[in-house]
Structures are given as structure tokens and as C-alpha cells.
């Protein structure tokens, strides 16, 4: 029995190669999308699950204020862990960590390591990241001990044994002993460092303050349920600790380790994801699956007419309805199985592309975990049941005498179903089409908006203490290269100024501070960034040198800081931009000074944010060097800068970035979203067209007699095409009426996240409609022309 079904299914699939191909294509496309998304989700929800003590680990979140607004963050000072461990018996162990960049050298090898993690020796007791070589008890005890991941070990030592060797770390080349080798951090880990250095190597190790909060603290509790009672004790304890600090408020919150990646607003060492996105993308997966199923239903209901005769025969030779039903289900099972195989191959081929798109490092072998295999099996089953059952039900109900006599009339209910499915598919397509246009328009806007600063031909070079000490030389040497216009040092480049400070004018009370972003700069920052001075004048070299001379022993208030503020800051302090120059103000109270200049507002953060107040001020430290080039022969100039760099900063590899690349990176999420939308829109439109093709061929078959008669009566090809396409234009129009308002609402909400955004223009809808109609025209037109040019004598003779 089974063999007979299989044989007839296989042969009927082979006989109609075109249908089989588009059927397979539709299902494979849907399934491939689904599987890729499943892999993505499986990876996201598996974050940090590999830690054996995962349900006992919590991260400490700091919340504080100095009388004003309350700030929260994923950082603590180094004092928190020892203080808490002494105070609270619930805490079994804990580890303090911080990830930074360090220059590392070994013999002739010199690299800037971006992911150097400092951690307490208890790291291995809290987290499950076993050592391949070395002892977890001692690997990180004592200063300047380092554990390497396998890849890092290979990078420095090749085949030779690393344990016991010395790496030189930092600008001062401190020797660090390699004490262990561990596997590379798993891809689904919230920390993915390349080397682990003992925390005691840091000067901050034993700090006695709660305020130098630059470290992440994880606590290992004795019982998973300890988190609530412990949480309840913290505020009281902290209140006691802070009792002589006036109106200062400081407390801590505990966040379960497993909630961090998907549910926390505070990033871990690796960027978090949002559970909301996981829900959305799960929805997308099911949508793709549904679209694929609908395409299949449409095509097969259409084809069922061709199979009607076979069904009739089978029934007259003794087949029961049930047997016909299962035969057709078997057929969908067969084609679904083929589609599963094809999509596994497609996943294998497309995974690198998907990884680029999603920013993940998923691997094909993930597919062969029970969870994913199960998910794929469930998907396949859903497809077989959902998409196979309707056509199977339709054909199994065929009346043999009707189908065999050829007086088989169209079934109105079937047409209604396939039509609704088509409308559904078109709604999705139109929705995505409109969204894509809006997303692309916003991306275009971001790329081309005048941000108020120059980001072309600006090179960003790293800065450190050694370089700063000799900055005058560095600057002179770099400026000797023809084409280098300005060399400036600053804490942040102008595209993303993040430093949070307080400010007030002389008239305001010292506890009535205003929040402000501020950036330590030098005298060439304003010209290098192309900022426009409206009133007053830029910093002079003298201004910078005065502050440079200031050190810890200089009494407070000894210097009068010059400040450059933007228009918004001037207004916030109660002055018009023109009258602000020369006014007295404070930055963080510790810096009294006066307004030296007012600059025009520019977007110093991503355009999700409106322009806020900004202060530029001279300071001793900086983390970036901006080099403005004239734009002629950039490659040649970079080469020259590189060779100068080797002379002035031999301790540091020459690494540069372009400001405009860094600027674009801020909008990675949007750019990625744009690509995702392009992709899904393309797929959904393609599948909708395939479904439409099925529906149209169904209609053409049903009306083959009518078409024949009309032709004999003198109808031309054009008349027939119009007759057949009219219905589908109506379906497309209905879909637009449903899709456009929904799309408008959704993209409106999305755009609200941007302080600066494009409008949702009417032409976006017009173009979407036009594309929709054009595709309907092409798809149905092709089939309609074929039906219309068929010889009517043939179609009528089949009666």
C-alpha cells in the first residue's frame, strides 16, 4: 500500500516538474528561514546555561544619586565584594571583573589585545570555564598571572608550551606569567575574553571607596533562593555605610545571571539582546512557515483538479475516502521531507551569510542537537498537517461519477479559502514592502544628514599615557606629513560623546546641578571636527597648557577653566548664545571657569537622541587622537603616518580607524534591520507570487471551458487576460487596504525612537501599490496569456 502511494506520488511529482519545483522551492525557502531563525534563537536562549552554578550566580547593579536624579549601572567599585562577603552569610563566593584593552608582546610579537579580562582568583569557582592546563586554585592568585585561551596561546606561542612563559603587558611592559590554558569562551557566553589576568594586578584591587565604580561584580550565593532575602538586606546595610555622606544615596540590586543576556537593560561584557526581539523573530519564523504552507496549499488545491480523475478511478476500484486522504498526505510528507533535506543544505550554504547579517558565529553542527532536530521535525510535521490536509481533504471528497464524467464544477468554498490565503500573503508582502521603504529612507537620512561636524577624512588613533607624555612631539611629527591638517587629542570623537557630568552657573545652588555631556579636548579639536564657533573664540594653546600644568597638589579652584559650550547648554544655563561668552560657570563643582566660546549645536550622539547640552573643556587625559587629512592620496598619507607612528610610539602597534566608519557602526542595528527587511520582503513577495501563480492556474483550469466558449464567440487574448486577472487585482487591492494602515502604525512607532526622523510619505504607499500591481500583472498575465492562446476546440472536447 505504502509503496503504491509512494510510487504514484513520486511519479506524479516527476511528471509535473514545474509544479514540483516551485512547490519545493516555496517550502524550502520557508523552512530555511525557519531553521536559521531557530538556530539564532537556540543560541540566544542558551546563553550562560553552561555554568554549573548558573542559578546561584547574580550580578550586582549599582544605583546612586547625589541628591539629584538617580543613576543605575552595571558597575561597582572594588570594595563591594569584600564588604558584602564579610557582611552577608548568603554569599558563598564572588568575583570582580573588568575587561580592557592592553598592548601585549612576546619576543618579536606585538598585538593590541581588545579583550583582556581581569578577574579575581575565585573566577573558576564561580564560573564553569575549565582549564586545559594549570590549576584553577592557583592560576589567578597573585599579581601578574595570566590564563590564555587556546587561540590566544597559539597566536603567541604557536606549537610550543606556553605555561610558565612571560608575556609583557601594557605600555610599561610588566612581565606576566602564563599559568594556564583554557578553551576559548563559548559563543553563547556573556563574556568572551581572549585572556584572563589576575585582578590583583590592578592598582584598584584594594580600594576603600564605593565610588570608583568601574568593575563588574558577580556573587555566588549559597542557595538560588537566597537572592530575595539578600536583596532585602542590602539597602539597610548601604544606608548605614553612607550615613556620614549627606544626601548621597547608594544601593545595589542583584540580577540573576541567566536574566542578563535577554532581560537586562545593562549590557554584559558582550552586548545583550532583548527578549522582545526574540519574540518578534520567533513570530517572523512562524510567519515564514505559514507563508510557505499557504503557498503549498494554494498550489496543491489548484493541482487537485488535475488529480481528480485519478481520485475518481481509485474510488471506483475500492478506495475509501480515508485511503485517498492518507495517500495525498503521504505525498505532502514526501515533498516536505525533500524540502527539509534541501533546506538543511541551504542552511549549510547560507550560514556564513546569515552570520554576517545577524552578527553571530553560529555553526552548522548546532543543527544536530536534539532541540533543533526536534524543532525541525515539528516544523515539518506542521507543514505536512497544515498544508497537506486541506488539499487532501478536498480531493478525497471528490465524487467519482462527477470527476470521471468531466462534469466537474468548481467548488466555491475551496476558491474562497485559497483566495483568503492569498490575501493574507499579500497583506504580509505589502506590510513588509512599506516597512522596507521607510527603513531604507531613514537609513538614507542617517547617512546623509548634516550632523553639524565633519566626519570625512578623519583618522582615529589610540592614545595612552606614554603617548600623552610626548604628545607635543607626536603632534609636531604628524603635522610634518604633507596633507595632515590638524592633530587633536580628546576623550571622545565628535560622533559619540558619552562622558556624563554636572554643570551650573554661578547663580545656581550647588545641589541644583544640571546633567551635561562633556568632553576633554585640546585646541585643535574644534577645527579638526569642523565645529562652528558662533561667539567667542576657540581654546588657545596657552589655555591647554595651563590646565596641563595642574596636578593633584594644585589647590582646588586654583585654575579658572575655559569652557566651550553648545547653544543648548547656553540656553540651559539661562543665557542666550550671544550673551554667554565670559559668564562664570562650574563643571562638576570641582572645575570653576568661564565660557570662552559658544559653538553651533551638532549631533554628538546617535540621532535617537535630541541634541542636549555639551561642554568642551581642557584636561590632561584623552583616549583618542584625531588626525584630519586633506583627502588627497589618503592611502599614501596613512602609510606615512604609520611610519611616523613607529618612531614616536614604538610601544604600540599602529592601528587606525576612520571616523565615518565608527559613525556608521553606531547605526549597525538600523543597517542590519534594513538588510533583514530587504531579505524578508523579497522572500515573502516571491512566495506570495508563487501562491498567486497557483491560484491563477487553478482559476484558468476551472474556467477553461468558459474561456473556450468566449473565444469561439470572438473574445481576443486581451479580453481573456483581463477576465482572468481582474479577480487578482481585486485581491491585491483588498490586501493593500488591510496592510497599509497596519504598516503605517508600525513604522510610525519605529520612527518614534529617533529624535530626528523622516516622514512617512504618501509616495511610499504609491510605489508599494505599483510594485504589487506590477507583480500581479506579470504573474497572472503569463498564465492568462497561455490560457487565452490555447486552442478552444481542445478545451471544449474534454467535456
Amino acid at each position, binding site marked *: 500500500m505504502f509503496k*503504491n502511494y509512494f510510487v504514484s506520488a513520486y511519479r506524479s511529482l516527476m511528471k509535473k516538474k514545474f509544479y514540483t519545483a516551485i512547490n519545493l522551492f516555496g517550502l524550502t525557502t520557508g523552512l530555511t528561514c525557519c531553521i536559521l531563525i531557530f538556530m539564532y534563537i537556540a543560541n540566544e536562549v542558551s546563553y550562560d546555561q553552561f555554568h554549573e552554578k548558573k542559578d546561584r550566580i547574580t550580578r550586582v547593579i549599582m544605583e546612586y544619586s547625589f541628591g539629584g536624579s538617580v543613576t543605575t549601572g552595571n558597575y561597582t567599585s572594588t570594595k563591594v565584594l569584600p564588604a558584602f562577603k564579610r557582611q552577608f552569610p548568603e554569599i558563598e563566593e564572588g568575583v570582580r571583573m573588568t575587561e580592557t584593552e592592553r598592548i601585549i608582546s612576546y619576543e618579536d610579537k606585538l598585538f593590541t589585545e581588545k579583550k583582556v579580562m581581569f578577574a579575581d582568583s575565585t573566577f573558576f569557582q564561580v564560573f564553569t570555564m575549565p582549564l586545559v592546563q594549570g590549576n584553577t586554585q592557583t592560576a589567578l592568585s597573585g599579581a601578574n598571572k595570566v590564563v590564555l585561551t587556546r587561540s590566544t596561546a597559539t597566536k603567541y606561542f604557536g606549537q610550543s608550551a606556553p605555561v610558565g612563559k612571560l608575556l609583557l603587558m601594557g605600555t610599561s611592559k610588566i612581565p606576566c606569567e602564563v599559568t594556564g590554558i583554557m578553551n576559548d569562551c563559548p559563543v553563547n557566553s556573556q563574556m568572551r575574553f581572549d585572556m584572563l589576568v589576575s585582578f590583583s594586578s590592578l592598582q584598584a584591587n584594594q580600594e576603600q571607596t564605593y565610588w570608583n565604580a568601574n568593575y563588574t561584580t558577580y556573587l555566588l550565593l549559597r542557595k538560588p533562593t537566597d537572592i530575595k532575602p539578600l536583596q532585602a538586606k542590602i539597602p539597610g546595610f548601604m544606608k548605614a555605610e553612607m550615613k556620614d555622606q549627606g544626601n548621597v544615596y547608594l544601593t545595589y540590586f542583584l540580577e540573576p545571571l541567566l536574566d542578563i543576556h535577554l532581560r537586562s537593560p545593562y549590557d554584559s561584557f558582550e552586548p545583550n539582546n532583548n527578549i522582545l526581539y526574540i519574540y518578534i523573530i520567533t513570530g517572523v519564523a512562524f510567519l515564514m512557515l505559514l507563508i510557505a504552507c499557504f503557498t503549498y496549499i494554494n498550489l496543491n488545491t489548484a493541482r487537485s483538479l488535475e488529480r481528480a480523475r485519478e481520485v475518481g*478511478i481509485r474510488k*471506483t*476500484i475500492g478506495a475509501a475516502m480515508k*485511503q485517498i486522504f492518507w495517500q495525498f498526505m503521504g505525498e505532502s510528507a514526501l515533498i516536505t521531507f525533500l524540502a527539509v533535506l534541501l533546506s538543511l543544505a541551504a542552511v549549510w550554504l547560507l550560514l556564513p551569510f546569515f552570520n554576517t547579517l545577524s552578527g553571530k558565529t553560529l555553526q552548522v553542527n548546532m543543527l544536530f542537537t536534539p532541540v533543533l532536530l526536534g524543532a525541525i521535525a515539528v516544523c515539518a510535521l506542521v507543514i505536512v498537517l497544515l498544508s497537506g490536509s486541506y488539499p487532501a481533504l478536498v480531493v478525497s471528497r471528490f465524487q467519482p*461519477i462527477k470527476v470521471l*464524467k468531466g462534469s466537474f464544477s468548481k467548488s466555491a468554498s475551496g476558491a474562497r479559502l485559497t483566495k483568503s490565503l492569498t490575501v493574507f500573503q499579500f497583506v504580509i508582502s505589502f506590510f513588509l514592502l512599506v516597512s522596507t521603504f521607510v527603513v531604507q529612507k531613514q537609513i538614507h537620512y542617517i547617512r546623509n544628514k548634516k550632523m553639524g561636524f565633519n566626519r570625512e577624512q578623519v583618522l582615529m588613533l589610540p592614545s595612552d599615557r606614554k603617548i600623552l607624555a610626548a604628545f607635543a612631539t607626536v603632534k609636531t611629527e604628524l603635522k610634518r606629513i604633507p596633507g595632515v591638517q590638524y592633530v587633536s587629542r580628546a576623550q571622545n570623537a565628535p560622533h559619540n560623546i558619552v562622558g556624563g557630568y554636572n554643570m551650573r552657573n554661578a547663580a545656581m545652588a550647588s545641589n541644583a546641578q544640571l546633567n551635561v555631556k562633556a568632553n576633554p579636548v585640546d585646541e585643535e579639536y574644534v577645527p579638526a571636527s569642523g565645529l562652528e564657533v558662533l561667539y567667542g573664540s576657540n581654546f588657545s594653546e596657552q589655555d591647554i597648557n595651563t590646565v596641563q600644568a595642574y596636578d593633584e597638589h594644585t589647590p582646588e579652584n586654583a585654575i579658572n577653566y575655559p569652557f566651550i559650550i553648545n547653544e543648548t547648554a547656553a540656553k540651559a544655563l539661562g543665557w542666550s548664545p550671544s550673551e554667554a561668552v565670559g559668564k562664570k560657570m562650574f563643571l562638576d563643582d570641582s572645575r570653576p571657569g568661564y565660557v570662552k566660546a559658544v559653538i553651533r549645536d551638532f549631533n554628538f550622539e546617535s540621532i535617537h537622541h535630541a541634541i542636549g547640552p555639551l561642554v568642551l573643556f581642557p584636561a590632561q587625559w584623552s583616549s583618542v587622537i584625531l588626525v584630519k587629512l586633506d583627502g588627497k592620496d589618503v592611502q599614501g598619507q596613512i602609510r606615512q603616518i604609520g611610519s611616523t607612528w613607529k618612531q614616536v610610539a614604538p610601544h604600540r602597534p599602529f592601528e587606525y580607524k576612520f571616523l565615518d566608519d565608527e559613525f556608521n557602526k553606531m547605526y549597525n542595528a538600523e543597517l542590519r534591520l534594513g538588510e533583514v527587511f530587504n531579505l524578508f520582503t523579497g522572500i515573502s513577495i516571491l512566495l506570495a507570487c508563487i501562491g498567486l501563480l497557483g491560484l491563477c492556474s487553478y482559476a484558468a483550469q476551472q474556467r477553461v471551458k468558459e474561456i473556450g466558449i468566449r473565444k469561439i464567440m470572438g473574445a481576443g487574448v486581451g479580453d481573456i487576460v483581463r477576465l482572468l486577472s481582474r479577480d487578482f487585482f481585486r485581491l491585491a487591492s483588498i490586501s493593500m487596504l488591510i496592510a497599509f494602515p497596519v504598516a503605517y502604525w508600525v513604522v510610525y512607532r519605529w520612527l518614534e525612537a529617533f529624535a530626528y526622523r523622516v516622514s512617512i510619505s504618501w509616495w511610499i504607499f504609491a510605489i508599494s501599490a505599483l510594485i504589487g500591481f506590477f507583480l500581479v500583472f506579470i504573474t497572472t498575465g503569463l498564465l492568462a496569456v497561455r490560457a487565452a492562446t490555447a486552442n478552444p476546440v481542445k478545451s471544449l472536447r474534454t467535456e
Partner: protein
Amino acid sequence: MIHLEKIYKWVNNGSNRVFLLKDINLDIQQGEFVSIMGPSGSGKSTLLNILGMLDEASEGNYQFLEQDVYQLKEKQRSQLFKENIGFVFQAYHLIDELTVYENIETPLLYHNVKQSDRQAIVADILDQFNIVGKKDLFPAQLSGGQQQLVGVARALVAKPKLLLADEPTGNLNSKQGEQIMELFLELNKQGMTIIQVTHSEKNAAYGHRIVELLDGRIDKK
């Protein structure tokens, strides 16, 4: 074997009731070979479909093998149909995707016959119909006569008691037609009850008795 009593069949066409069959009373004994004749539209095929349980009468009483067909439940009726009735069509109606062998085998699948038995039965009938050499061909590769031969073989493979044939020679040339009729005669001699619908006097003459239909009634001239 068959007892039809006051069988009416009508369809509603708008407010009009169009009668396809009127007051049909017919008895057919086991082993009979009956030909149903009549002009186009006289109700021959409708009658055959009612006899073959593919269609239901609007009114009347139908007894098949002493069982009241219209009193039976759907399942029992299809069981009765499956076990006792074989159909031969004018247009052969072979399944295009299956070979000759598989076409003949299919009814046995629906009768849940074991594979080893199936092989034996199909081999027997291929032999009996002299089409062993054609068993792996597809219907499209056969002539009309050969296709009809396969059609008959398929109708007989599940050993029905009644063979219904709707113009079995309608699409065949006279020589092929003759062969099929000779075959029917032979089958009848072996005990098969046969009811055929035909246009041709010559074919009708193969049967024991002719039922003439005219405008849905049995014409008793």
C-alpha cells in the same frame, strides 16, 4: 442478485424537477449478462451508476445480494461495493502514473491483500489476459484496446460478483471492440454477472437480455 423497485432519480433545475429515471423496476439474477440500451439522455449511465452505488436514487428501493442498499450505513455500503462490484469505463480510466502491473494491483491494495498474494493474483490475471509482456508499460504506451484490456483486468482482479461496463467499446475500433465483447462472453460463461451500457445493437446482442431505456423509463415494447 439485484432487485430495483420504483426507482426514481431527479435533479432540481431551478424550480423545475428534471427526471432522469422514472419508476424503474428491474431484477437481475446471478450469472446474467444484461445490456442496457437507449438513445443519448435516456438515463442509461445514471442507471448504471445507481446500480454501481456511485450514485443514489432519489426515491425507491434497491436490494443487492438481499441487502437493502439504502438502509445500510456508509461504511457497510462501501464494503459491499468494494467486495462485489468491478467497473469498466469507456475512457478506460487507468491511472497514468502507474504501470500496467501497478494499475491492476491497486484494487488489491484497497482490499488489504498481502503482498505475496497480490503478486500471485496479478501474475495470474496478466497471464489470463495475455499481457504479461506489457506489465511494466505505462497506459500512454498502450493502444486503446490494450488499455481497455487492462481496465477489465483491473475490474476483475479483486474477484467481484458483478461487472459494470459503461460503453466499454465506445472508444475502440470494431476489431478491438469485438475482442472485449468475446472476453465478456467468456467471463460470463465462467459465472460473472455483467451489466453493460451500450449504443451498439451488435454488442448488445452478446447479452442474454436487453433493457431498453427511453426518457428515463424502461421501454417495454
